[in-house]
């Protein structure tokens, strides 16, 4: 992509890519991931229901 072209995607901008300070900080995260098969199904977005009703 040339500098003149608009950036349509967040990851076209190299400043965003792979910021190490924001990656792999699991040690600081106190929660364990839930088992997706053990949670209730998502009910859906209320706004979607409204606009498609």
């Amino acid at each position, binding site marked *: 992509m040339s500098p003149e072209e608009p950036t349509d995607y967040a990851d076209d901008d190299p400043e965003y890519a792979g910021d190490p300070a924001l990656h792999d900080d699991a040690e600081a995260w106190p929660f364990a991931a839930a088992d997706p098969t053990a949670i209730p199904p998502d*009910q859906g977005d209320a706004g*979607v229901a409204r606009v498609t009703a």
Partner: protein
Amino acid sequence: MPVTTPTSAVSGLDPVQRTRCRDRAVQAAKVALANAASMSYTEGPLRWSGIQDHRNAALGQFPVTSDCSSFATWCLWNGLFLQFGLGDLVNADHWQGGYTGTMLQNGKQVREIANVLPGDCVIYGTAAPGVHTAIVTTITNGTPYVISHGSQAGPFFLVYDYRPDVLQIRRYI
């Protein structure tokens, strides 16, 4: 050549501000997760109570009632608005409404998983306008994890592709 600080094409924040903003959005999701038992999933107008009632996660506050998109928006509002006074970059509705459809119309898409950062939102569904969203809160070994509020039992902390219909990942910070 003068040194310029790169600003985000999405929010206009500089890198230090963006980090603070992301931290604040993640803190909001974390406070909500810690108070899951006190939160209700609602599809009524009260789903925007977190923003309407100015619930500030930095003070330990969380939205008592919300759905998935109003929850993710509330998290981002904590960073974008409460910290930096920015307008509604998530739904373009003055922080008063929105859903996955407006979330798809705003921000910028992150195409590569390697570039996903905390504060980005995963939007689920097989096509626009999507059906569900969750906010990225941490990256572990290159895999994003989200906090998702999709049911009365939520929110939950989950791997980002806990459901198979990942439609897009978008950035608003």
